[in-house]
């Protein structure tokens, strides 16, 4: 067994649109035919929702794919490689494509296919991964990215992410970070900016009486750098940052996380004492630190729900929801949507909402009603009454109402309280026009039982 030959190589890489159009196809080893693309597409579209699609096998060929930007990023292989390597590589390929093309979509890939071929040519040779670092690649990539101007003023794909908040004077425009890293021309091209984003994903399960049953936060600090070369950057985090469960919290205002992981390039010599990360960011996007906090939430959960579900008349359910936002008064939650499962067979619904910008609709296909609130200020309380008609309603059917799941964004908020104290470039970087620090919390999964 010890003398076993271990090959771990990729045979082909291809990118398909969701409709199965071939956007990119590169065969590294000539061992599988070109029709494997069509085989893959037939297989992946024939899968039912509960079958794991990540690895699929056709004869002696394995397909491993990820979905990013609505596209299929596929690697095929005749060997038995590490799934983690292939998946992370495909994710990296997608990230690099986004870095170089500005955004990730069928259109941007179509327009920049020559650039992506160039990338792939340098990234993989004979099926073996050579390099994926922007610092290395940028020496070899010659094609200029082609970008499309957004069609309308409201390019909704980006607005949500970091919130088009205008109350504060200094807010990065939401599309500022979605442009190619290498473009040397164009109006935006001259801006040598650095974005440092603290992004947290919150996953919460609350019991029926508002008891917190599960709370996890997965966070990361992401740098997007548009500078062709950047000197060392010092990122100062909260001085009182405790890592690990063991430390006693006491009454201090310390920020706690359970575990941190750092990018290979991050220097940590000042981290233990001063909580300073030192990194020389390379061009493009990279995650410098990942952290998580489990079974603990330093702040109150952002939303509390007070539901009441009653049977009205013969065939009608009354669902009365009171939703309170427990964020600090100056903060706002955006794009809040509340999904409430309703009994099977619900046919129609009428609702009373407290303001006209809210919407609600019944989605019989999903057996749920959807209540959407575009802006939800901290400290506010909203209520809504839904009357759902369900023919043949029994009292047991009321048990089908719930659990409620919510999705939302909290711009300028981190639930852990992690903050960036300062960003320093040393020695002072020339040509840097702007440094941005942005915070956002997304709901990964926010479930409230009724």
């Amino acid at each position, binding site marked *: *067994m*010890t*003398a*076993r*030959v*271990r*090959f*771990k190589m990729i045979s082909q890489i291809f990118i398909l649109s969701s409709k199965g159009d*071939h956007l990119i196809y*590169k065969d590294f080893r000539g061992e599988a035919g070109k029709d494997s*693309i069509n085989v893959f597409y037939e297989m992946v579209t024939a899968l*039912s*929702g*509960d*079958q*794991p*699609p*990540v*690895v699929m*096998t056709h*004869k*002696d060929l394995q397909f491993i794919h990820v979905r990013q930007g609505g596209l299929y990023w596929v690697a095929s292989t*005749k060997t*038995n490689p*590490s799934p*983690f*390597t292939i998946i*992370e590589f*495909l*994710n990296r390929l997608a990230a690099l494509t986004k870095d170089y093309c500005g955004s990730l979509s069928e259109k941007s890939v179509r327009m920049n*296919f*020559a650039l992506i*071929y160039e990338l792939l040519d340098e990234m993989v040779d*004979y099926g*073996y*991964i*050579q390099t994926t670092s922007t610092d290395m690649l940028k020496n*070899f990539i010659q*094609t200029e990215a082609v970008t499309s101007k957004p069609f309308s003023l409201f390019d909704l794909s980006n607005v949500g992410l970091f919130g088009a908040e205008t109350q504060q004077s200094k807010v990065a425009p939401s599309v500022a970070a979605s442009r190619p890293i290498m473009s040397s021309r164009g109006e935006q091209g001259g801006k040598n900016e650095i974005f440092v984003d603290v992004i947290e994903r919150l*996953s919460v*399960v609350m019991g029926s009486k508002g008891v917190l*049953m*599960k709370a*996890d936060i997965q966070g990361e600090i992401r740098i997007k750098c548009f500078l062709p070369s950047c000197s060392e950057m010092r990122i100062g985090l909260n001085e009182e940052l405790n890592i690990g469960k063991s430390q006693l919290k006491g009454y201090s205002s310390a920020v706690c996380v359970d*575990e941190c*992981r750092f*990018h*290979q390039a991050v220097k940590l010599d000042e981290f233990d004492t001063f909580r300073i990360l030192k990194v020389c960011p390379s061009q493009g996007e990279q*995650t410098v630190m990942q952290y*998580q906090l*489990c079974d603990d939430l330093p702040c109150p959960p952002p939303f509390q729900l007070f539901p009441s579900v009653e049977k009205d008349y013969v065939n009608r359910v009354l669902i009365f929801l009171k939703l309170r936002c427990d964020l600090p008064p100056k903060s706002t939650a955006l794009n809040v949507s509340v999904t409430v*499962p309703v009994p099977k067979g619900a046919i129609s619904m009428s609702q009373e909402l407290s303001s006209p910008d809210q919407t609600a609709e019944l989605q019989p296909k999903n057996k*749920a009603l959807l209540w959407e609130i575009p802006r939800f200020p901290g400290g506010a309380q909203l209520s809504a009454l839904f009357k759902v008609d369900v023919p043949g309603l029994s009292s*047991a*059917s009321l*048990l089908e109402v719930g659990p409620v799941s919510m*999705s939302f964004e909290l711009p300028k908020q981190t639930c852990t309280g992690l903050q960036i104290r300062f960003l320093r470039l040393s020695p002072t970087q020339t040509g840097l026009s702007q440094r941005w620090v942005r915070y956002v919390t997304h709901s990964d*999964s*926010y479930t409230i*039982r009724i």
Partner: protein
Amino acid sequence: MPYFGSEETVKELKRALSNPNVQADRLRYKNYITRVIRYMTQGLDVSSLFMDMVKASATVDIVQKKLVYLYMCTYASDKPDLALLAINTLRKDCADPNPMVRGLALRNMCNFRMPGITEYIEQPIVAGLRDKASYVRRVAVMGCAKMHSLQPNIEIDASIVNELYALLRDPDPVVVVNCLRALEEILKDEGGVVINKPIAHHLLNRMKDLDSWGQSEVLTFLLRYRPRSDDELFDILSLLDAFLQSAHAHVAVATLRLFLHLATAHPAVQADALQHTSGALLTMCGSISRELRFAGLCHVQQVMRSQPGLFAPHYKRFFCAYSEPSYIKFRKMEILVELVNDENVTLVLEELRSYCTDVSPELAQAAIAAIGRIARTYSEKCLDILTGLLALKQEHITSAVIQTFRDLVWFCPQSTAAVCQTVEACVDCPQDSEAKQALLWLLGEHGEQISSAPYVLEVYIDGLKTELSSSVKMELLTAAVKMFLCRPAETQDMLGRLLHHCIEEESDMCVRDRALLYHRLLQQGVEQTRKVVMGPKSDPSMSVLTGHQQEPVSQWVSNFNTLGPLSAPDLCIQTPLISSPEQPSNNAEEELLPVSKDVSPSIPKDDQEELNLYLGPPLSHESFERTWLDLEVLHRETLSYTRPRTTPDTLQAALQLVKIQTLAFTPGDTLPWKAYLYTRGNRTLILAELLQEDPDSEGRLVVSVKQQPPNQHALRGFVSILSSVLQTLNVDS
């Protein structure tokens, strides 16, 4: 994808490319070349433009060069004679002062997959290996592997191999890793690249210079190295310790695998490494990328085979998120079922309960089945939930609950009374045939405890004409006969009607034969029928070995960090086991472990040739029994000797040595003497019975083997291993 009017398109492109005006305008020319590549990607055959593209390769524009090279590599094998025309330009580029041009030309020249090319590329490759630019050396090293694959039968060039070994000391980390890869390919007939002590330690010391891809590749190569001493082993482990915490999932997992592999003799070290990496694995299970999440979950399942308790405190991390796709939710539920313990059972059940009303029926049914699995240990709590679900009166939920009940009664007889009570109280007639069969089975098997049972049966018998499924009819026949045996007065009349209908009017042969069989059986007398139909439910000698066993790490480590866990080849043996034809309810479980049989065997396995027996996940005696009853005897052989006169312990230990598990045997000297054994090998499950009827003289040992799925090769191997062990034992005693 052939396009309408594609011929026209190609002609037009050809005209444009050969137009001197276009050629003179650099941008327009390049534009047309780009269009050629675009059509090529879309699947249009543009090979007829080869000549024009070759011309376009003579340019100073690197972008254009790259596009043309991409084109040439794609079509070189179709047009070898034309491709040779491009060689001159490429060879000239190989001597260009710009290392990028040199590397590009060399890489693409080696990518021409045509036989005659080797004589042209050999010299540039050898020169490239000594190039001062690392970029060119990387390309040249890979070129050696490409060249070898073009002429695999030609003797390996020892000087190139030596040169590659020397380049393992190259200052550029990618060159080092490429050398390993190239040597592995070139020397594959000799077992791949040799990792001896100096090379291993050299690689270990270079680890921190490598990027993450190089690291995980080197870690995989190091699996081949065996440290000479424990001291060396621990030196290596401490060097690698930091990589267990790598931010890259693939490095952390590759390091873990190497740890587990190296520390085979030190279970404590293995446990420690697993503990250390559990955080990283959990992070993967919560990654943004759902594919990574899935891979993480599948590997957590592997680890749990040895350390079921490791993830139990983190059970909340396996709660399903609303937006997750079903295939991730299924995995998470499987994990939740495995890590239930006294502390978390209440919360886990509460969580699973909330999935039971999910909009996806498959998911709801899987959640119900998961609760049923937990019920084998915590029956009371689970039965409450399952009973509560019946009140929802939803078709798919009721169906899943009844099927779960049936399985529960089978696996865990002590819950029979409670189940019967519930069934009595709240079951309406389900509509789908799976649930009907389950209900009928319950009624037949435990009719004496369900007072309304005959009346429910009667409904089915009256509705027989409209019943379409023959399996339901078969089940109905069995249930009615069983019911008649325990409650004759109430059942006699309807059984008569049922048999009459099935014999006279039924068109399905199987049902008719079954009815005739029961009819004839009943003619033999009630007591005879009872003996046959209500025979002992399980072999009393098989009342050992239940419960979950922890497997040693070695059982799964060879599969760790490969595609195996993602397509769950281990489970495909277990799945059909649980869901025998009479037990269709486990369909839900099958969906939990969606293993298509054609996936697993095609994962390249290195042990196709010889039979490697292994124990695999432990088999409970119920599942053994059910599989045993389901399968046909594939092989029966009378051995030339009697049963070994050793103590049971010796027998068990001896068989364990060759990886055969003894499930049960007759104690002492009682006759007939029986033993039940099982093992796994070459992707089949092998079950065997040893039987000795008479004391000595004539009484030879009879071995009967059943197998799932059948594999003659494995079967023969098994029998020969088994008989040689028994023979040895006989000689010894």
